[in-house]
């Protein structure tokens, strides 16, 4: 008989999951060249962070963490709006440009 190991669900589980999502998002941001996908990866990382915020909020009984998530959402929305507008503006001039094509600012 296997000993019944009762594993309790501590906040650490959530934090580990958030770290994994964050790492995946970071790697994606670094290796993908399509600006749209890069934005999605940024969203992934933001979501990982919001998840930690909510976990800490629950663990520490602090409503501030959840308020922060709210603000992160707003900033993410703003960022996506401007970012996609940029993508539209760029794509209009150069069909199918990716992030590496936009290297005019190199030193």
């Amino acid at each position, binding site marked *: 008989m296997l000993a019944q190991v009762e594993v309790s669900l501590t906040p*650490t589980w959530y934090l580990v999951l958030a770290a994994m999502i964050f790492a995946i998002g970071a790697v994606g941001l670094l290796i993908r060249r399509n600006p749209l996908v890069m934005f*999605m990866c940024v969203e992934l990382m933001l979501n990982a962070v919001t998840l930690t915020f909510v976990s800490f909020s*629950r663990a520490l009984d*602090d409503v501030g963490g959840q308020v922060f998530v709210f603000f992160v959402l707003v900033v993410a929305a703003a960022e996506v709006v401007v970012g996609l507008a940029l993508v539209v503006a760029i794509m209009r001039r150069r069909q199918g440009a990716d992030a590496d094509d936009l290297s005019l600012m190199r030193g």
Partner: protein
Amino acid sequence: MRVEMFTFLLAGLICLGGALGVVLFRNTVHNALSLVATLFGVAVLFIAQEAYFLAAVQVIVYAGAIVILFLFVIMLLGVDRADQMGVDPIVGQRTAAVVFGVAILGLSLVALLSGPEVVTGTPATTAALSSDIPDVNQIGEALFTDYVFAFEITAVLLTIAVVGAVVLARRSDGPVIDEDEFDGTALDALALEEPSDVGDPDQDTADGADPGSGADETDPDDLEEASR
């Protein structure tokens, strides 16, 4: 406890799978749909932690608005083709990315797992999260008392973002010039070229599905018209 664990594991798997999908799928539409999966999983995890309001916002704003916006732009620009994933043009970028990603994950895990199994820190004294009051009430109260200034600033931020988006995405009136052509040697060539002929020939052949490809040799305004 079983149910909670089950929920967590299921939602966590959805999240991870979605995240991997975002990074690994080649088709942009698939990436976007994978993102929805992750966002949904995160929303479930919010509910598991009794953050009902945020879960709702997550679904409505992220899945409902932001991802739709992504898909909209994908359709608008017709870039839903496969990415060239074969080789990275920046030398060592991919290796370094993987190394750094593993390092971030590994170091985070070390930090998380080597410590005690509970979160350390000081519990809130001023705005304690109470399970008696609905969380939307508590967030609302915090937003309009302690964080009211930040709240107003975010309103300004959103307004600026909207204005910026409109300005950026607006159709410009002047002749369209690709700034990338300005790299010294190309300047003279540009002067000899027809000002309207700015389409990149490499891109034309690369993708037959490009809805703008039929209008490639025409005026760039028409080209924009077509991509609309």
